[in-house]
């Protein structure tokens, strides 16, 4: 009995593989959790609350929330149709297009910023034209939105694509054979069934947009978003003054995580 021999030899060592995974994994887990706890413990709660009402912090929070919301809406508006197309088209073209979609995910954010500046920067034709009609695309809310959308929208496309793919095509054929158009079918059958997955993509995009720093720095240093504000505070006044905004961002991240694990379907589960 080969299996019996194997089992007894494993116990002979005294440590089975599951215990090893637990110990090694535990080290990593501790490395994630400990900094969060020390961050929350490093400033008295009263200080944090007091600093929350600082106009600079309030303004950064407003900019971040507004810009990230707009970016998320834009990413969803343009990302969902692309995700549907990618999920329902066979052949080589979708593979190439998916690679293009994933590009902003793997590109270093500062490089994304540089790439964007070549298109919407003050010297570029589009940047100049927009500036002349009073809608500058850099150092403006529009700039923040452009940077965030570029970096965050792939999350909507990639996650919604797998959500659409998880909807059995037979259900769509069933709907169409009942005389319903592609659009009616998408609205009544595919979208509701892919809903939790789409929500996951939207949540991830929002979380990514909230945290966007590199590309935003390059394209729109002003108005300051929370990540930029953290950096500015850290550079000019030191670590302590960066804590409140950082804690605020941790809270937002935790809320996003809660959404992912409750109403949305966590794509990594």
């Amino acid at each position: 009995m080969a299996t019996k021999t194997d089992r007894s030899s494993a116990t002979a060592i005294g440590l089975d593989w599951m215990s090893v995974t637990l110990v090694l994994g535990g080290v990593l887990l501790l490395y994630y959790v400990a900094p969060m706890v020390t961050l929350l413990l490093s400033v008295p709660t009263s200080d944090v609350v007091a600093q929350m009402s600082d106009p600079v912090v309030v303004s950064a929070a407003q900019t971040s929330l507004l810009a990230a919301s707009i970016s998320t809406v834009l990413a969803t508006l343009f990302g969902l149709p692309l995700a549907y197309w990618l999920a329902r088209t066979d052949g080589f073209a979708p593979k190439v297009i998916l690679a293009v979609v994933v590009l902003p995910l793997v590109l270093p954010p500062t490089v994304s910023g540089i790439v964007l500046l070549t298109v919407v920067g003050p010297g570029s034709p589009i940047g100049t034209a927009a500036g002349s009609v009073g809608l500058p695309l850099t150092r403006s809310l529009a700039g923040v939105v452009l940077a965030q959308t570029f970096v965050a929208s792939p999350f909507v496309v990639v996650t919604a694509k797998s959500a659409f793919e998880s909807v059995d095509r037979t259900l769509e054929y069933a709907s169409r054979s009942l005389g319903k158009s592609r659009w009616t079918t998408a609205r009544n059958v595919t979208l509701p069934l892919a809903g939790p997955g789409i929500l996951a993509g939207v949540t991830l995009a929002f979380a990514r947009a909230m945290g966007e720093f590199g590309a935003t720095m390059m394209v729109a240093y002003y108005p300051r978003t929370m990540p930029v504000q953290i950096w500015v505070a850290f550079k000019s006044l030191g670590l302590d003054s960066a804590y409140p905004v950082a804690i605020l961002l941790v809270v937002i991240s935790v809320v996003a995580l809660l959404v992912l694990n409750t109403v949305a379907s966590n794509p990594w589960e």
Partner: protein
Amino acid sequence: MTLDISGLSKTYGEFAFGPVELTVGEEVLAVLGPSGSGKTTLLSLIAGITSPDSGAIRLHGRDLVGRPPEARRVGIVFQEGALFPHMTARENIEYAAETAERVEELAAVLELDDVLERRPTALSGGERQRVALARTLATEPDALLLDEPLSSLDAPIQKRLREELHGLFASLAIPVLYVTHDQRTATALGDRIAIVRDGDLEQVGTPSAVLDRPASRFVARFTGNENLFEGRAVDRTPDGLRIEIDDLDLQTTVTDIPTQTATACIHPSRVIVEAPGDSEAENTVTGTVVHRLNEGGEYQIDIQFDRVDRTLTASVRPPTVERLSIETGARLRVRIPPESIHLIPA
């Protein structure tokens, strides 16, 4: 209402479907074949899920090729029902129905009143298929396609639903194509049976024609006829041809075949088993039982002949098995009625 298919073909990589010629009137055509033979491809082409490489599909005079599924008025019931999981049974049917009365009417016909408010996950397999059927019929299609709707159900439910479908199909005045790999379902429901093999129609005919007079060895085997013997036509009597299988000489009622050699095909249910006797009357052979298999309603008995090295399978009802004490090693005499020998030209 007629469904006319001509020159229909479709190639996927190695698999070539067609060209198929088929006309289905206001009847039930059971499409019978092994998995991978192209049964589902045929349905997909008619429903518009796949487009053909060539050929025409006309329903009630309308050309369907090139039209999207939603513009074909072809209803399709999928294997697992394909009910929308986020809708209740009622919502599923309402999605397709024009009026609320239609929903009530179909729920009554298909006995769904008690389960209308349930989600598909809370329905049994049989209920799910009935809801799927109600949903498809709600659109009042010009043709109805069913893709193995009973195959995932337990045997008793399968049998009951088969009976219900039989009655329901009779009330429909549209072409019905029923795909199955189960010969019992095909014979029970089909007004005609189409046997599909490797993407082609091997034989189309009434259930008795296909079962009793298979056009090929494949059709014979697939419809449960294992008794295929290579033989030679040796004599022509007023009653029909005499055929010689090795040393065995059998009288048939077949008047003529285009070739000298032929495959004699004897359906197991047409074979008569008797107690071994001294005299060998016409078309009787003595042998020994080499295998006995209880299939529930009947026994499959394999009999090894004494004179020639051949084994014949007979379906025998339990009372006969008991009366003749048929078990492995028992001696039996087999009578093959001349009219039950079908010849497939070689």
